């Protein structure tokens, strides 16, 4: 216990130290030279915004076995959660919470939003296993169940601020985070933990699509 206390204390201290580090003024984005170069190499129509997590160059496979990049979600509001199918504690609750968020959306939005589950378990949660999970939980066509390799999963988790580790029994310890993305793939809201916050998540999603 004492050890934990020390740990938290240092965590906090490091954060404080990081915040107090003198930060130079953010480098202006609009360097005409770079902007021109960027525009030349990537047509504006296909470029993601600077805050878009769709910039992540990661490939996933959906539960029908098709290759899937997150950028395909562009244009639709997204509710995203990282999970693993054999999880007996939080993950089933998180899926239920995502269904509850869907239930709170205005009707028009309910049919446009996409619900994405990305598995930590790169070994066991194959597309086939995810298809079984879809059937078990009766998830309809608005759900995407994604399998990725180690790299893709770790990078996505890092972007979302999700921590996880595989325990010796093969289960995963992980943060419980539901993330709301706007049509550009920017994080507009995160519900952290397991209690409450569903109205706020639904409201954030509705606001993001206005």
């Amino acid at each position, binding site marked *: 216990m*004492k*050890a*934990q*206390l*020390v*740990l*938290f*204390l*240092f*965590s*906090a*201290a*490091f*954060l*404080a*130290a*990081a915040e107090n*580090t003198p*930060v*130079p003024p*953010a*480098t*202006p*984005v609009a*360097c005409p030279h*770079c902007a021109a*170069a*960027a525009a030349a190499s990537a047509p504006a129509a296909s470029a993601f915004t*600077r*805050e*878009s*997590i769709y*910039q992540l160059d990661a490939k996933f496979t959906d539960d029908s076995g098709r290759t899937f990049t997150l950028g395909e979600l562009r244009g639709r509001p997204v509710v995203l959660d990282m999970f693993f199918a054999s*999880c007996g*504690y*939080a*993950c089933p609750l998180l899926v239920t919470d995502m269904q509850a968020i869907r239930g709170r959306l205005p009707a028009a939005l309910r049919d446009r939003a996409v619900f994405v589950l990305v598995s930590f378990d790169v070994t066991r949660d194959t597309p086939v296993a995810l298809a079984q999970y879809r059937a078990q939980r009766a998830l309809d066509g608005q759900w995407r169940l994604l399998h990725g390799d180690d790299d893709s999963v*770790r*990078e996505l*988790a*890092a*972007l979302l*601020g*999700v*921590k*996880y*580790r595989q*325990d*010796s*029994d093969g*289960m*995963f*310890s*992980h*943060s*419980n985070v539901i993330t709301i993305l706007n049509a550009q793939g920017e994080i507009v809201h995160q519900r*952290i*933990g*397991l*209690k409450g916050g569903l109205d706020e998540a639904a409201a954030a999603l509705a606001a993001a699509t206005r």
Partner: protein
Amino acid sequence: MNLPLGLLRFLLLLPALPAGAAGGAAGVSESGMIHVPAGNYAPLLRTPKDPATVSVAAFLLDERPVTNAEFLTFVTAEPKWRRSAISPLFADASYLGHWAGDLAPGPNAPADAPVVRVSWFAARAYARWAGKRLPTTAEWEFTAGAGYTRPDGKNDEQLNRDLYAWLARPVPAVLPAAGRGRPNFYGVRDLHGLVWEWVEDFNTAMVTGESRGDTGLERDLFCGAGSIGAKDTTDYAAFMRQALRSSLKANNTTTSLGFRCARDLPQKPFQP
């Protein structure tokens, strides 16, 4: 809980062992990587279900941290990782903040000093570009657990003296050159005494990084992480590294956080 901030600051002041004390590192390959043999690592924190030690396979590790000169080569080749171009998702506003310009490290970032103010994403992108990867926590800690003259450095008094002296010293405005620290048992330098380093799986550290969020809320914030505990509460420096990792986000950069790369050993050739 309310330690004076001054004391915390003192404890957190970071780095730089006197350079020198060198000696010829036996196992340096041409690429500047050291062959670290297989061994066992006892994780600092584990759940009751976890085994006391995990095995670490033999691998290659950079002899020293990546330097400004090396990072300059990378950003020159990969424009999206330049300071003016990088997305805020992948590095915060202080990314390479001590460099004079996008392609000019300048006087505060000497060519042979370790590059700092780099994010996990940037460190990883560099490693990938170089055909390498970041070391895992287990690999890094296993290697760093060695003393100067033996594989178990826990009771290496000189190492401990150097380590704690470093922890107590402020970060110099301009970091000294990488690769001049005394090599450890395996021939790897600067694991202690120069900068903190990113590891691939930094985000396995199961605390939220915010002390106010870590106590009663823990069971809700983390699935399955109810009772993690420390095996060796005397390993103060390892606690500090663990605390740093758990407090970091992948886009964070700090004035004393750099990285080095690792690589799997080449597959053994088939022998009939």
